[in-house]
């Protein structure tokens, strides 16, 4: 097992969820390469090969738009997430690229104190190991939700 590779990727996954959970959303696009792809879908759509996404982006610019819409345009009650990422399996594709498959759970905490298991699923990642500044970055992150149902709304990215 390539322990260095495993640690590099787990570190990326950890930094990503801390940025979201700490409401540093402006940092979120920076975890992706410039033409990075991000999509949230359901296991049902994914397994049937259907293209519909709940969120879809094919560039860092589209991710940045999502953040500015959340900050300036969209209306939603104050809420936070707490991500738990686990069971990360890593596979090297070539010298520059690796794939990772992880589980996640997300607890959503509303400003009212209501706390619920908001989502569970898998992160299916393709990672560039030497992105800008030598950092590992996502070339593609597919978020596959286990359930087809979303409670109320999905504002903050997963």
């Amino acid at each position, binding site marked *: 097992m390539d322990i260095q590779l495993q640690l590099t990727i787990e570190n990326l996954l950890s930094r990503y969820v801390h940025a979201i959970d700490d409401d540093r959303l402006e940092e979120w696009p920076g975890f992706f390469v410039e033409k990075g792809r991000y999509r*949230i879908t359901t296991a049902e759509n994914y397994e049937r090969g259907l293209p*519909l996404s709940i969120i879809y982006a094919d560039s860092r610019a*589209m991710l940045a738009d999502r953040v*500015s819409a959340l900050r300036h345009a969209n209306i939603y009650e104050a809420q936070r997430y707490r991500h738990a990422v686990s069971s990360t399996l890593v596979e090297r594709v070539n010298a520059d690229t690796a794939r990772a498959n992880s589980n996640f759970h997300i607890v959503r905490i509303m400003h009212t104190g209501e706390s619920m298991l908001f989502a569970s699923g898998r992160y299916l990642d393709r990672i560039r190991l030497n992105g800008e500044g030598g950092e590992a970055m996502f070339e593609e992150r597919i978020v596959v939700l286990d359930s087809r149902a979303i409670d109320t*709304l999905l504002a903050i990215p997963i």
Partner: protein
Amino acid sequence: MSAVSESRVWPAEGLTRVPYWVYQDADIYAREQERIYRGAVWNFLGLEAELPEPGDFKTSFVGEMPVVVTRDPGGELRCFENRCAHRGALLCLKSRGNTKEIACVYHNWTYDLQGNLTGVAFRRGVRGQGGMSEDAQPESQAPRKLRVEAFCGLMFGTLADSTPTVEQYVGPEVAAKIRRVMKAPVRVLGGYSQILPSNWKLYFENVKDTYHASLLHLFFSTFRLNRLEQKGGVIVGGDGGSHVSFTMMKSDQSGDEYERAGMRSASGGYALQAPQMLESVDEFGDGVTLQILTVFPGFVLQQIMNCLAVRQVLPKGVAGTELVWTAFGYASDDEKMAELRMKQSNLVGPAGYISLEDGAATGFVQRGVAGASARASVVEMGGRTVESNESRVTETSVRGLWQQYRKHMGL
């Protein structure tokens, strides 16, 4: 007959007042199941494209009643209650699939794809022992069959013989706007559900409420994409419960009504880094960039630029609603159009730039009226009647919903 308290009398003002008990009362909810969903309405069941082959089936709901929708071996669409004649267990446990027959898992009673009971396990017993008597009539409790009509590729079902054809039910103008979107064979792009913390009618009102669109959904108005000063209109059809609203959007409007009124949605200085998402194609050739259409009691057909979807509004208790989204394109879509539809899917759904607020807003009403069942909401924008209108600063289609609702409910 469900017992609705005598205090549930509609306010004297009529259609301009909606009493809050209508979103809260369990007896009202029970009466809706009987008189609306199981009455003379067309319940949306899905896209015909979901069941392309004989033997295809899906499960769905008519109000709270579980149903199976099938394409039988002869190619006909069928719908019947998802309830075994024997003990009432669900017949079909999968959300979709293809099969030759349906067997209840509990005691293996079998049904064909038209919902006919075809086999009772050990009906004549085993070796002369047990079984049912000759005159037993298990068929008497067979699942109820719905009349199915596929209108322009949309499947609707009704339990009532008196329900007119779908076209008569929605009226000719709304029917024409269904044909506009369902103009060619469609391809399902996927689906998801959104669980709303509110009574089903709050969501159905929300979809019909053209007044809120640019006030709650800041995304479009910030980009001057859906201002109420732009051309468009509202058509109310059928008994009032069906409607279509449309907008001919321009991305570079010079109107300043919003700024002068000091509206929140006029806040400027916000630009997209990747505006390609909004570069839509006029695939209908009429300049209408946004068309929202509803059919009472729970169907929405949506064209937002090139983002097409149907939504099924399902009641899940007095204060809960499941909104089932199915996105589609046309079978003839090329790769470029498929990509555009994918990008524009960001506009809708639980994370939609112009729809995510709706899930929360209907919940704000449900929570807001918790102590006010004797009070009523004020629905007077655009007058007091139900009629088609060129302005969208109107609640005419919301009043239309209540007109049809009250007729069915006897309220």
